[in-house]
């Protein structure tokens, strides 16, 4: 044994991105003859073998409908499904599992709140407050509600860095405001909103807050009790779980007072033609056979993320964000949209003289997947006066080498479209 001084062992195991990449079978495929460089994680993420295997095992060994039968498989499936709910509770640190409602995804979570809490609490002349950063799914459900009720949709503006104007938000919170809807992390720009502070400001005026956590849940630790938000919703497919499953967290006292969303089986405790008594929480909001295997897959993804540690995921993606920001900023003619002080690993950009759609096509032939378009956030595009952007969004399996590949790809784009 050498007596030479050795570096002290790290306090935690180093983030081994190469090992993590091996957990995702799709990352080894090639696209147009090139290794896949998948930088469209804000749209959806790939699935690790652990998630795929858990879903398969569930179907092969324990699958049946839940909450229905006395037979063994139904009992097992119900237990596994409810364990998934408990896993989701722990993931966002909710107080109770009955505060977790399984939904199809963030879009359904927001629609559920608009159509139940919203319809019961928003009336003529009232106001619903959202921000100029929102995804269409956090705009349109509120427009539908406001139109139906004769209420007004008010928009908190953003600044030129793509940050919500907190001073304007304070001014817009009025005695008419019935609910405030805000994203935790912007899908189009990556802005991380100070949700805790926003919730405190809203609560000081007695206004409840719903948080769109679709982009935050896979990227940063989420603690709904620390945020003190009233509703928090996110999608499984953006956090390494299957499509068609998501979570709506809501404070129990709100869920209890809310009318049901959809009617059907499992959401009732008794039905006669004269009167139906609704089931207890959270089943009151889960009509029909839910996406049972999806919930099982979501819990597996939460276990997977939990084993890595959300702090570690966040640190890794922060490193990619800093590196990508520096690397891309150095490219002449490239402009990054969204330069908030607090950002998640999303880089939206435009290239002088080249349309984003052409950027996307050329990068695709290099095996690089980015999103081009308005990212379902047309008001954000309008604010920056661009029809579209190209967007690279990173996940836990991306590497600095992939950022380099992106930068080289962009240089190829420029070479082709040089005036």
């Amino acid at each position: 044994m050498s007596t030479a001084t050795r570096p002290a062992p790290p306090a935690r195991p180093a983030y081994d991105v190469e090992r993590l990449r091996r957990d995702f079978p799709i990352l080894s495929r090639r696209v147009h003859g090139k290794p896949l460089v998948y930088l469209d994680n804000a749209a959806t993420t790939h699935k690790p073998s652990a998630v795929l295997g858990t879903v398969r095992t569930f179907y092969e060994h324990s699958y049946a409908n839940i909450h229905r039968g006395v037979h063994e498989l139904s009992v097992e499936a119900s237990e596994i499904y409810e364990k998934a709910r408990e896993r989701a509770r722990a993931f966002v640190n909710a107080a109770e599992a009955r505060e977790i409602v399984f939904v199809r995804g963030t879009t359904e979570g927001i629609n559920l709140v608009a159509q139940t809490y919203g319809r019961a609490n928003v009336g003529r002349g009232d106001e619903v407050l959202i921000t100029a950063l929102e995804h269409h799914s956090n705009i349109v459900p509120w427009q539908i509600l406001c139109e139906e009720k004769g209420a007004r949709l008010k928009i908190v503006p953003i600044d030129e860095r793509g940050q919500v104007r907190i001073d304007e938000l304070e001014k817009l919170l009025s005695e008419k405001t019935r609910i405030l809807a805000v994203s935790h992390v912007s899908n189009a720009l990556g802005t991380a909103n100070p949700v805790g502070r926003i919730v405190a400001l809203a609560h000081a005026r007695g206004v409840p807050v719903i948080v769109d956590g679709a982009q935050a849940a896979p990227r940063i630790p989420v603690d709904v009790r620390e945020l003190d938000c009233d509703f928090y919703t996110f999608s499984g497919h953006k956090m390494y779980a299957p499509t068609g499953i998501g979570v709506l967290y809501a404070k129990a006292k709100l869920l209890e007072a809310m009318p049901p969303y959809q009617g059907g089986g499992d959401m009732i405790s008794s039905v006669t033609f004269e009167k139906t008594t609704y089931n207890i929480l959270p089943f009151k909001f889960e009509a029909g056979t839910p996406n049972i295997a999806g919930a099982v897959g979501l819990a597996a993804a939460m276990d997977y993320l939990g084993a890595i540690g959300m702090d570690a995921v966040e640190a890794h993606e922060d490193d990619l964000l800093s590196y990508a920001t520096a690397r891309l900023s150095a490219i002449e003619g490239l402009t990054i949209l969204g330069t908030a002080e607090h950002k998640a690993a999303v880089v939206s950009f435009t290239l002088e003289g080249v349309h984003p759609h052409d950027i996307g096509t050329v990068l695709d032939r290099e095996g690089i997947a980015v999103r081009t378009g308005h990212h379902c956030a047309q008001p954000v595009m309008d604010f920056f006066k661009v029809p579209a952007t190209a967007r690279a969004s990173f996940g836990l399996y991306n590497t600095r080498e992939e950022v380099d590949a992106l930068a080289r790809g962009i240089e190829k784009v420029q070479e082709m479209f040089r005036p």
Partner: protein
Amino acid sequence: MSTDLRDLYQEVILDHSKRPRNFKPMPDANRSAEGYNPLCGDRETVYLKLDGDRVQDVAFQGAGCAISTASASMMTERVKGMTRKEAEELFERFRALITGAKPPVGGGPELEKLEVFSGVREYPVRIKCATLPWHTLKAALNDQGQTVSTELSEGPPAESGGA
């Protein structure tokens, strides 16, 4: 650059996208229409001076990707002087070229230089970029007086969802 990309972005196409012809407003146009492609966020306006049934002059304006800009530019060069029927027949032939469909039987003008768009066939999501100016031209010819969207025509649905 890979060869197949060159099939899409041919020199002629790149040239027209960088230096579009007939790219100007037309204050004395007697017909115009606006086209919209939600996939790219592109909007472009086609202006026409129709003399009876004949395209006396044509111009366009707007912001688009290289494919839609080049398509508009080359379209305006080609349809000048044509009758409405000829322009519409040419569109059908052009559409067949880029979708890989069977070309329409019968007469009508030949594609000539527009053949350079044959590479679009290999990029299904870009078909709408190439047809946007043609849809817009057709709307102007028929005086539809409203925004035409590529989403009301061919191909798989473009971006309206997702994140």
